[in-house]
């Protein structure tokens, strides 16, 4: 007999929040380097979105049944049991022709319109930090019908001088992927991002395309979110606490990710955050 599940971790709660953004019957792609998203797609497909066309990042396998989540995405363990496979050009053509319902993107810098940077810190003349790069994120940010944005590093604790290095920033040093408005203010085509899931709460967007705090977690507050965000943001009138996943969903996440790869996205302190169901 195993103990009944009465709590969930922050990672599991974030996976559930991401899963809630996934519609049934669409094609969605999880990309690589995205364990929370990979688990969210499998959770969605096994709960409210059974007709989801789940395309695995890096292998382009369709509707696979991974034996376990691996720390690298282009691995046979991630494509086991796939119904069929796409290749790289087919996947991106599907997005460009408007047939990718949802994509998931993250950034080391995220601005108020959710332009994001995963390319470099510092300006063109002075490269301070070279980041790995965005893969296909630049293209998919414009081509996918809807985008879910996630980051497990919203919290920006002050350093010894009291400075905070924000993840949600006033300005991106480089725009790898586009949000609702480009840096010169011109609006984007298509619907774009509709949600940001972070370690502190969940944002939606107001009618101008500006990020708006829509929900918090039981251990966070709008003030805490503001303190850790590099720009001012509106707060929804009906600011709520996010819903919690069902125990069977948590069990499924634990079964899919026995090595707890998704915890690697979280800061050390956040790995111990737990919530009563």
């Amino acid at each position, binding site marked *: 007999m195993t103990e009944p599940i009465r709590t969930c971790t922050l990672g599991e709660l974030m996976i559930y929040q991401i899963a809630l953004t996934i519609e049934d019957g669409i094609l969605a792609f999880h990309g*690589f*380097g995205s*364990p929370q998203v990979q688990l969210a797609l499998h959770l969605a497909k096994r709960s409210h979105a059974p007709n989801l066309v789940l395309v695995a990042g*890096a*292998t*382009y*396998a369709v509707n696979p049944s991974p*034996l*376990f989540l691996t*720390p*690298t*995405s*282009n*691995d*046979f*363990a991630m*494509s086991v049991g796939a119904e069929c*496979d796409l*290749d*790289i*050009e087919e996947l*991106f053509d599907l*997005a*460009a022709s408007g047939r990718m319902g949802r994509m998931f993107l993250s950034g080391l810098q995220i601005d108020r319109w959710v*332009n994001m940077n995963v*390319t470099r810190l510092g300006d*063109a003349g002075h*490269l*301070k*930090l*070279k*980041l*790995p*790069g*965005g*893969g*296909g*994120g*630049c*293209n*998919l*940010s*414009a*081509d996918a019908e809807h985008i879910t944005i996630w980051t497990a590093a919203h919290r920006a604790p002050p350093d010894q001088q009291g400075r905070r290095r924000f993840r949600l920033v006033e300005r991106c040093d*480089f*725009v*790898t*992927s*586009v949000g609702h408005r*480009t*840096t*010169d203010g*011109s609006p*984007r*085509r298509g619907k774009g991002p509709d949600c940001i899931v972070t370690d502190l709460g969940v944002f939606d967007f107001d009618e101008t395309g500006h990020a708006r705090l829509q929900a918090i977690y039981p251990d966070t507050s709008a003030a805490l979110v503001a303190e850790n965000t590099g720009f001012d943001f509106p707060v929804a009138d009906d600011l709520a606490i996010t819903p919690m996943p069902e125990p069977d969903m948590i069990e499924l996440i634990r079964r899919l990710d*026995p*090595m707890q*790869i998704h915890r*690697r*996205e979280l800061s050390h302190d956040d790995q111990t955050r737990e919530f009563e169901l």
Partner: protein
Amino acid sequence: MFTQADKRCTLSELVAQVKDGDVLAVGGGLSWREPMAALRELIRQGRRGLTVVGSAHGIDIDLLCGAGVVAASGESYVGFEQDFGMAPNFRRACESGEVQVRDNCCYTLVQQLRAAISGLPFMPIRSVQGTSFEALHPEFKTMTCPYTGDKIVLVPPLQPDVVVLHAHFADRHGNLRIEGPPVADILFAKASRKVIVTVEEIIAHEELAEIGVTIPYFYVTAVCEVRYGAHPTSCYPNYAYDRQHTQYYYDQARQGAEVFRENYLKPFVSQCPDHQVYLEAIGGRERLHRLATWRESAEQWMSLYD
């Protein structure tokens, strides 16, 4: 067209097809089927000033950067995902200015390869607008579509001088068979001036025709049989990703260029005169056997990630 009847050659002859200053595309992606033995030979031959282009890569590009082979990078991603994170040698080389940053994006790359494959001066693309890639790539142009009136981006052809691939099978004529995700290998093979390939096994043409040709022979310049030629990346079903070796690589690379040279490049590249010696250096038959045990059970497979 490459039509010679027998394209087999040694690994050093194969890699000698790459010249200093070439635009080099590398096959595979992330931790899957990267042509690592050929890249190690490229380093031993002292090649310099390469521009690397590709989609999502890891230890392959990082190793080339750590060995001082690369002058510019047009990759869309170079890293170790959530496994180890950032690529230490790549990062260091970019930040010091040794490697020029010319990052690209996956679909942009696909469209550029398609322009090369179809002999067109450009391909259109809707994305990229509003991102910093426009300033990074002044060769990308914007035009108004004569049919819809929408603004679109035009990207020029990308024709690598050489692509180096690692495949499962070839015949001596150069027909190739790849199992599992081809990543951008087929596009690269059709777009590049030269296609050089290491394979797990060279088999008779009849046998290859039976399992199916992934890339036709006339694209292929030369082939060389190099078993375990993708190590430490995976080449399923033959062998899984060698995470322990990659962990060692990463730990050395993270400690700086000097430590990496002493503790990794010397013992695993420059002091290994050939691939056989490398396979002994990484643990020989015992290590290689372990990487083939992924099929035994899910538990055994998972244990390879410890």
